[in-house]
């Protein structure tokens, strides 16, 4: 039961992007289409899961003074694996995500979970935490991408969904649209959260 809770806390209650404001760069940069968002989310989830497992296994061997560089090396190794695999099998997606794949290394969500969770908990818990946070990150990316792709291109996953005479709001797919969409989504979430707090 508590394992399920470790996992689902990442979806909404401790969502890395919306609640903790971590991993903002990829959340804005690759959310111009749902396809990119899912690709990025998948890559980050894989790295998060693997690094969580390895770090929680190694936590007693790593001296606490140099733990951050050690975590970074572990994360960077998995990022290299993802980078090379995607380049080989998902070339188109790899090209779209571009520089943001090597930049998963400095995604604060992953280092944040290593420091705050995997370095302090056992492997099983860390696995569930990694999966949950990864899915939460992906959900946030998809949520932003949903609105940007819908408004900016009139499409969802590349399929036209808007009426034929719909004029795409181009700004939504450009850089400013990313900031505006995320800002308004955060505001909306605050608005919906209000009644529970009282």
């Amino acid at each position, binding site marked *: 039961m508590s394992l399920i809770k470790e996992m689902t806390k990442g979806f909404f209650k401790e969502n890395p992007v919306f609640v903790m404001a971590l991993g*903002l*760069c990829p959340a804005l940069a690759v959310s111009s289409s749902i396809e990119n968002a899912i690709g990025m989310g998948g890559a980050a989830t894989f790295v998060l899961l693997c690094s969580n497992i390895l770090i929680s296994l190694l936590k007693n061997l790593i001296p606490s003074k140099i733990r951050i560089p050690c975590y*970074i090396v572990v994360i960077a190794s998995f990022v*290299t694996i993802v980078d090379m695999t995607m380049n080989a099998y998902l070339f188109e997606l790899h090209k779209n995500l571009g520089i943001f794949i*090597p930049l998963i290394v400095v995604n604060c969500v992953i280092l944040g979970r290593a420091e705050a969770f995997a370095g302090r908990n056992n492997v099983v818990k860390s696995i569930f935490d990694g999966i949950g946070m990864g899915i939460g990150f992906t959900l946030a990316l998809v949520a932003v991408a949903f609105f940007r792709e819908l408004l900016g291109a009139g499409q969802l996953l590349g399929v036209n969904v808007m009426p034929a005479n719909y004029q795409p709001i181009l700004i939504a797919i450009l850089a400013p649209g990313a900031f505006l969409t995320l800002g308004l989504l955060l505001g909306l979430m605050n608005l919906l959260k209000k009644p529970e707090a009282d």
Partner: protein
Amino acid sequence: MGIFTLAISAIFINNFVLTRFLGLCPYIGVSKKLDSAIGMGMAVIFVMTMASTITWLIQNYILNPFDLVYLQTIAFILTIATLVQFVEMVIQKMAPALYKALGVFLPLITTNCAVLGVSIININEQLSFVESILHGVFAGIGFTIVLIIMAGLRENLEKAPVPDSMKGLPISFVLAGLMAMAFLGFAGFQI
């Protein structure tokens, strides 16, 4: 590529924060006060210049000749982490006043994706050694400019009547969106 072209392109047309989406965490996190924004900006310019210099040398004199290009990500991030640590120690010893001003921001810079970003972009765009260094400087300046503008705006925002649910982070993003819109005016400049 001329220095002027490189400068305009790195500062305005391809601004790291507003067009390339790099370095957003410090952009949102450290832009509450003007003083700390200036401190952070200076530290970033410094580290980005050093990182561009050293990563270019590593790429062209170690990774390329020995066929180790697949180690790029690991090599670069370790270099940057070491560099930041080293810079912190040197400044602490040599210039305590500067350390007091920059000290708290230095450790944060390791995980600033703009620093790793500028290193990788230098290599991807096959810039020469001098161009890489200049690109590092100008990208840092571009980052600092938008960080300082943002801090100034947010200080004034404190007095504005913002709806409760939009207070804090949400309104900052909307503000960043409006700034990005202004910077979009530079897009497509041909120099």
